[in-house]
């Protein structure tokens, strides 16, 4: 079960919209697939994200995976807790494991992403 109030991408990122601000992370499915997350590399505050562009890297013990921006905009905040505690991505991917907050270039963008039901069909497909 994925949270119903979020939007999703096929690449397993989630977006929580609050006006023109979007919070971004990776899904529980993604975190489980990766295994124990031991390192997260995020862009600097002020960086500009292109939709579908890479915005960072998440590493498990074994694997390195790129993170793709689900929306375009300017990074206004990153989750500094992930430096010391990357395992938050596994423990609480939709909460304390969030990755960054973006000021949306187009506040209409998240609505065009997958809803919870559509994302669930991706992970069960």
């Amino acid at each position, binding site marked *: 079960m994925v949270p119903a109030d979020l939007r999703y991408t096929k690449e397993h990122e989630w977006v929580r919209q609050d006006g023109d601000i979007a919070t971004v992370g990776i899904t529980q499915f993604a975190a489980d*697939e990766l295994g124990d997350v031991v*390192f997260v590399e995020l862009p600097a505050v002020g960086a500009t994200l292109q939709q579908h562009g890479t915005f960072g890297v998440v590493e498990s*013990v074994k694997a390195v*995976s790129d993170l*793709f921006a689900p929306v375009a905009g300017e990074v206004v905040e990153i989750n500094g807790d992930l430096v010391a505690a990357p395992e938050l991505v596994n423990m609480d991917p939709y909460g304390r494991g969030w990755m960054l907050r973006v000021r949306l270039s187009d506040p209409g963008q998240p609505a065009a992403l997958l809803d919870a039901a559509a994302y669930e069909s991706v992970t069960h497909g």
Partner: protein
Amino acid sequence: MTDTPALAEGEPAPRETPLVATHRVLGARLIEFGGWLMPVQYRGILDEHRAVRERAGLFDLSHMGELFVEGPGAGDALAAALVSDPRRLEVGRAHYSMICQPDGGIVDDLIVYRLAAERFLVVANASNAGVVSDLLAERIVAFRAVLDDRSLATGLCAVQGPRSAAILAPLTDVDLAPLRNYAAVEGQVAGIPALVARTGYTGEDGFEVFVEWARTAELWAALMEGGRAVGMEPCGLGARDTLRLEAGMPLYGNELDRATNPYDAGLGRVVKLDKEGDFVGRSALERLAVAPPTRRLVGLTITGRGIARHGYPVVRDGRASGVVTSGTQSPTLGRPIAMAYVAPGDEEPGTILAVQVRDQHVDAVVTPLPFYRRPR
């Protein structure tokens, strides 16, 4: 994020150990490794790694190659085929060895057990087992010895960790107390005829138990039951890799390959140039033993922010030095560690190098191997 690639199309289906169904029931994630479908993790690599360091872990190693060489000329045959001298082994003992090409390049690294005066067991890596079997067959032709490749007839489970003797002892008629490191003895485990060896690839005390293929699942079940009380975990290849890296042990395909000779890898002590008789690679290895090294295998501790991975470049003051062969976040040390080949002159412990992680240079310091040594 990107998905982990599945099996490439067009590859033959991987082989399965007798334990694949068991792994699935335990919730393992299975991957193709060395031509085999193997568990990479069950509950999680970090949990499994810690279980081995603190208590015990159980590994399915049935993919390894078991090559028996037997006959009055078996010792001479192996001495001619390998870089070590198995004739020097006492019965019941084992040593680390390598099989090399004529140019000294490493075909595989091996454990050789002397089971009887005229009977040896050579254990090869899964991905190389076929090649090693073929090469051994070729190289022993002139000797009074026969090769019996029992790779697909032999199951192997390893119990590793400080509690492994306590787990195994009640299940076996083998007296484990006098069984030394790199020693092996035949006996029974859970009523199954077995070869019990005090060997492993984790840096901990532990045992490798070889049994008949068809009885591997029975052995696994008995070991799992025996380990329950001490919190033993089934462990996959992911933990096996982080454990061996902390213990500073090379992995074929990472630190060792055909373009690498034993001296490059700091394993010159394994090559017995003083042994009697010719062996494949001797003349090349005699030259390499005294030639100035072209590269050095070192340990690196990453002091900057980033994880060094296989293939990442190593630099010193902006000039190229070498390449990372293995790297991960060390579960025990809580920081990233790596092994790398670096330029001669850059190998002294304490030397400050950098690893290129994507577009950044991340500081690293040369660190003596192993990174982790078990408390005794």
